[in-house]
């Protein structure tokens, strides 16, 4: 396992570089938007990866609620944290694309607003995990995660349910895309998914280590003679 991580790291770096080359050089230039449309190759894969991570968070939270396994709780925490990072990328790159194309940075349109609400739900989840120290914290967080996950399909399909400025979804929507652009988009998604997996793996190891140290500290303070500090 120790050897697999650097090998996967190198492979992911190569894949990310290849995906960047595909996005900037190989993908055809969109006729009306020009080069600024290439933001799409980072914006959409980041959104899909965030949704995937929130889905994993949902599955792990349900599993934790059913079985109370610590590993499931750690997976839930890690996937939410990395998902928030990817969702932040979506919320930053979207307005950077919108400014030259729509002429505005932001509009309170349903897709944009629901994505912001989704981000706030998962940020509140992370605040709960960070600042609540009670034994019930994983249970409360898992319950919040279930509610948060219900928002993910709403965000994705909000384009169908409401009149919105946002372009139609590439998958399962009414939008059409050049096959070469779709190819580049999928390569970028694969690269960002591998990257997310590696980051989650590192974060999982870190969280496990943190919990082991916390247990060791607790044990140490129990065994230490009265009056001595840690």
């Amino acid at each position, binding site marked *: 396992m120790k050897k697999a991580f650097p090998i996967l790291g190198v492979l992911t770096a190569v894949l990310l570089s290849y995906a960047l080359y595909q996005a900037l050089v190989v993908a055809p230039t969109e006729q009306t938007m020009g080069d600024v449309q290439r*933001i799409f190759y*980072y914006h959409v894969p980041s959104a899909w990866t965030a949704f995937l991570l929130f889905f994993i968070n949902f599955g792990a939270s349900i599993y934790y609620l059913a079985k109370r396994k610590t590993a499931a709780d750690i997976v839930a925490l890690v996937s939410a944290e990395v998902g928030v990072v990817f969702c932040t990328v979506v919320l930053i790159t979207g307005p950077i694309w919108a400014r030259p194309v729509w002429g505005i940075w932001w509009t309170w349109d349903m897709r944009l607003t629901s994505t912001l609400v989704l981000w706030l739900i998962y940020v509140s989840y992370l605040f709960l995990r960070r600042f609540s120290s009670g034994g019930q914290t994983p249970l409360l967080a898992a319950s919040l995660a279930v509610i948060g996950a219900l928002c993910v399909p709403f965000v994705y399909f909000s384009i169908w349910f409401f009149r919105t400025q946002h372009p139609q979804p590439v998958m399962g929507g009414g939008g059409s895309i050049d096959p070469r652009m779709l190819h580049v988009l999928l390569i970028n998604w694969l690269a960002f998914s591998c990257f997310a997996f590696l980051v989650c793996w590192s974060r999982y190891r870190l969280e496990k*280590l943190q919990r082991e140290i916390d247990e060791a500290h607790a044990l140490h303070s129990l065994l230490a003679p009265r009056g001595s500090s840690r």
Partner: protein
Amino acid sequence: MKNGYLFAAYAATWIIHIGYISTIVSRYARLKREIEELKKS
């Protein structure tokens, strides 16, 4: 000028990811120090 937006979006993406990875690395370094302290005590 429009390429400036493209550069800004790609740069912002990597600043966010690298920033997050650096927090993981610093937390890991802090934990390693804590392990050393626990071993000593």
